[in-house]
């Protein structure tokens, strides 16, 4: 085996493979940093270039790019509260509040350090675990996957801040939203409103961008000030502080690495939830966890370690069994096949050197990517000190185009804007958003696993499978442990300190009781709408939604009652029952701008609509001179054309004027 390790390293270190690896790293950093582009789009773009290459440089090029997207995705998550890729959603929770405190550099220092360590250790864990890989993967049937999903949902408590009730509501609604489209056994579409767009379900990226990015954009536009609330000259922490944080929390880094590497190994599950699992674990296992969600650096360290450590784990089922755990892995498998390598068990035996060369590529790329970003971090962090109005148009461009890449349909923007409204109401009303995303991501995997498990087994005998029992014990332990940790918080809660726990939600402290009422009312209406048709559906299609929406309605009613009570208390105390009305007015105005972008796109396409928005917003809302607006618009057009038209080859909206 040692020979295989060395031979693998020699294959990577040889020219030109190492050169292509670094080229891949640079491109991967770019794809990860631009929200919406992601590793998936990056790999799809880069694969055709590798057709004519030799196997080692081709794979080095692709793995270099693939490895570091989860390193650079931290940039948008921390600076703007927008997930750079789907794997960095959990980073927002504490990364963005840190940026708002002026500690973006510190967050970067910690995140890039643990990304490198996570990537490196993840690869090492993988190397050591290769003899265990086959039995581990083969013992995880759909029954075990279902139990793992339940364990993921048990994290809701950790992601719900001080209101487990609202966390449960959000998680159930997330599950409910995941049922849109064809049911897992396929014959009947659910909640599709007659729109073909919805037949395959709601797309993740527009949903997440809507829930997280648009509310932050509204906040930024309303404030008009910088992302950082603290002036630059008063910031004492920097990159070195972040590196120190990472090293001080070495035990958390090690545990998050293990979570990333092993959960990442499970096909179809790992990559999508690993950051949430690591974050939840960090909250659950920390003695003093009251700062999570308010800019605790451990909330950045855990997911950023895990999402890089996961890459090596995800590689194993792809190369060892030809089972790609994600779309990006499927592309990589295609590239392997085109290079004449057939995935199979011999990749763990006779062709172990090839496997190790891939592991080395990941490890070297992770370290290189982190070092490059570390050098740039100080400059990148300056974005948080740029005036908000100058940032809004470029973020709108990234967010709208990122959403557009999901299906290249106007439906992507409709989903983005609708979930923006929901996200804003949830944020202002103190309803935590992370459990909703967790439910949404886990929902289809869980339903699918349960459906197959029920078809395979008679009754519930599968619950007695050894791994199911172990996971079951972990679920119980997680809930009990979470409840015990929560006890002191409950006391605080009765003192009227119910605060949201979703990143910047917590920045405002007290939530708005009127918006809370609106948000819970909306979620109740959605639950009733979700439940209604399930009675007429066949059992295998309607049972799971029914089991989701009935408790959702019960919890919504309880939350609604709680909101009404809070509203009455606030009125009795003579305090403002609708403090968020000013910002909501701003939100309304911004939405008018965005509807304008939508209308202009239908009329003239994105290449005109988005730059025109930039120019008009900057001139009329930002108060900049008209020539600045024009310059900004020209920059936007160039960027859209070069990146999205020439490189990504996006399918633009077929506008009325220029179709």
């Amino acid at each position, binding site marked *: 085996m040692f020979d295989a390790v060395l031979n693998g390293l020699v294959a990577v270190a040889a020219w030109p493979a190492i050169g292509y690896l670094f080229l891949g790293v640079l491109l991967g950093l770019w794809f990860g940093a631009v929200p919406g582009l992601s590793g998936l789009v990056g790999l799809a773009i880069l694969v055709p270039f590798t057709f004519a290459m030799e196997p080692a440089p081709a794979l080095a090029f692709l793995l270099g790019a693939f490895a570091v997207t989860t390193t650079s995705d931290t940039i948008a998550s921390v600076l703007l509260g927008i997930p750079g890729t789907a794997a960095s959603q959990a980073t927002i929770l504490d990364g963005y509040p840190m940026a708002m405190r002026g500690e973006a550099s510190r967050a970067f220092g910690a995140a890039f350090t643990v990304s490198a360590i996570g990537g490196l250790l993840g690869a090492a864990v993988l190397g050591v675990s290769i003899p265990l890989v086959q039995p581990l993967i083969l013992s995880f049937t759909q029954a075990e996957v279902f139990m793992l999903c339940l364990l993921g949902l048990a994290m809701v408590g950790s992601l719900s801040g001080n209101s487990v009730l609202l966390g449960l509501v959000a998680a159930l609604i997330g599950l409910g939203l995941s049922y849109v489209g064809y049911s897992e*056994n396929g014959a009947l579409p659910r909640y599709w409103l007659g729109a073909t767009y919805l037949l395959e379900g709601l797309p993740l990226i527009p949903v997440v961008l809507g829930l997280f990015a648009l509310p932050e954009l509204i906040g930024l536009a309303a404030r008009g000030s910088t992302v950082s609330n603290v002036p630059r000259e008063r910031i004492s922490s920097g990159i070195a502080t972040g590196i120190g944080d990472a090293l001080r929390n070495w035990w958390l880094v090690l545990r998050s690495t293990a979570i990333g590497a092993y959960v990442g190994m499970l096909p179809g599950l790992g990559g999508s939830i690993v950051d949430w699992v690591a974050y939840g674990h960090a909250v659950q296992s920390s003695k003093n966890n009251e700062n999570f969600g308010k800019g605790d650096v451990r909330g950045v360290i855990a997911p950023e370690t895990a999402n890089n450590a996961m890459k090596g784990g995800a590689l194993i089922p792809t190369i060892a069994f030809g089972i790609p755990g994600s779309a990006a892995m499927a592309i990589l498998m295609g590239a392997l096949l085109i290079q004449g390598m057939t995935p199979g068990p011999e990749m763990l035996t006779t062709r172990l050197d090839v496997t190790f060369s891939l592991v080395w590529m990941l490890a070297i790329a992770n370290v290189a990517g982190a070092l490059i970003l570390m050098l740039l971090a100080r400059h990148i962090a300056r974005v948080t000190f740029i005036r908000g109005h100058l940032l809004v148009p470029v973020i709108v461009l990234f967010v709208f185009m990122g959403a557009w890449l999901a299906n290249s349909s106007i439906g992507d923007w409709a989903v983005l804007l609708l979930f923006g409204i929901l996200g804003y109401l949830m944020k202002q009303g103190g309803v935590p958003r992370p459990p909703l995303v967790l439910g949404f991501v886990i929902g289809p995997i869980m339903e699918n696993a349960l459906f197959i498990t029920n078809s395979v087994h008679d009754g519930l005998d599968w619950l007695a499978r050894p791994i199911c029992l172990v996971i079951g014990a972990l679920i119980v332990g997680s809930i009990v442990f979470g409840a015990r940790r929560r006890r002191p918080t409950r006391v605080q809660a009765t003192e009227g300190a119910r605060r949201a726990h979703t990143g910047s939600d917590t920045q405002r402290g007290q939530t708005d009781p009127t918006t809370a009422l609106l948000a819970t009312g909306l979620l109740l209406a959605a639950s009733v709408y979700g439940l209604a048709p399930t009675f007429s559906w066949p059992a295998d299609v309607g049972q799971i939604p029914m089991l989701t929406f009935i408790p959702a309605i019960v919890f919504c009613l309880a939350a609604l009652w709680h909101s009404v009570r809070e509203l009455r208390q606030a009125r009795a105390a003579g305090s403002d029952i609708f403090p968020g009305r000013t910002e909501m007015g701003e939100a309304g105005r911004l939405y008018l701008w965005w509807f304008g972008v939508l209308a202009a796109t239908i009329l003239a396409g994105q290449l005109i609509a988005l730059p025109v928005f930039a120019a008009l917003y900057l001139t009329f809302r930002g108060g900049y001179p008209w020539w600045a607006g024009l310059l900004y618009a020209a920059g936007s057009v160039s960027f859209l054309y070069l990146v999205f038209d020439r490189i990504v080859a996006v399918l633009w909206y077929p506008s009325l004027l220029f179709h």
Partner: protein
Amino acid sequence: MRFRHFPAIPNAQFNPIRFAIVYKPRKRFPGAALACLLAVVIGFTGTAQAQHYQGKRITFLINYTAGGPTDIEGRIVARHLGKHIAGNPGIVVKNMPGAGGIAGTNFMGEVARPDGLTVAFFGPPLTQQLLQDSGLRVDLSEFVWLGGIGLPLVCFIRKDAGTGIDSAENLLELDGFRVAGLRPTTSLDLRMRMALDLLGARYRYVSGYRGLANAVAGIMQNEVQFSCGTILTFRQIVEPNLIGPGLAVALWYFPATGPDGSQMRDARLEGIPTFIDVHERLKGRKPEGRLYDAFRMINNYAVAMQRASFVPAGTPDEAVDALRSAWEALPRDEDFVSDYIRLVKAPPALVQATAVRAHVEAMRAIEPDTAAFIREFVRRQ
């Protein structure tokens, strides 16, 4: 239907420029005049085709996600097709997944401009059209078809299923083995179930696996024991993980059949019996009856055009001609064939426009009774 196998027939296409240089006129005027006229007409058509795509970029649309089997094949075709299109346009690949391939199909019928610059390379949702899927808003026969790739389906089973199995002969002795499917409405699931029903096998159908790779994982875990996959996935995933290590055995493949019921054996699957052979051995007769008619109809179009390429109705003739010529040139393109063989470990079975069109028409002309029978079969899962 005719499959074109590698090695390819040498290029016998008429070259007007070469003709103009090397042709020596004879005194017999009508022959010379006709030849000149032909050269002018062909030359003009070639110029028109070249002008149409000169300096343009074609978007090659794939209706499944990046990295999937359709995508992998599509990217290989896209890589080689451009050089055979007069005018040498650039080709960029885009994925438009959704609703089992329906989202992209609706896009091609409703949104894509008929200018020859958006070309579909799809796993066409023919079964969804047959089952009158409410999401499919366009009629597939309206498209202008360019060509396709045929992929036969191979079925396999774990050797330790039931009391043990090493060939199709003892399949009927097994009781209650589990069959991994994707969705009840896919042509793969329909053919798999129909074939097992025709044999009278006792099995339990488990649908919901997201792609054949996951079904293979299920078989490796002994969660399920039987499934089927196209030759592409069979070679890429099934052989190295199941057949090679001796965990499973290939039972049969489904060949396309002619109007007289004759089998079109696939040379790439030599050594694996056809389903009809197996049926004859186990039941003493060839399959027949309504169930078999429905199976045959679905199987024929699924085998012949597992992937198919088309452009929207109304696309200019010069674009269609250029694309069809390029598609016809592909079997003779050694680079394409060697890339394909590297991927599939077998040469491509390319189907040309006329054959593809015939399958779409046949599917459209299906008897209402048969269509209703298939819909009922889906519901009876």
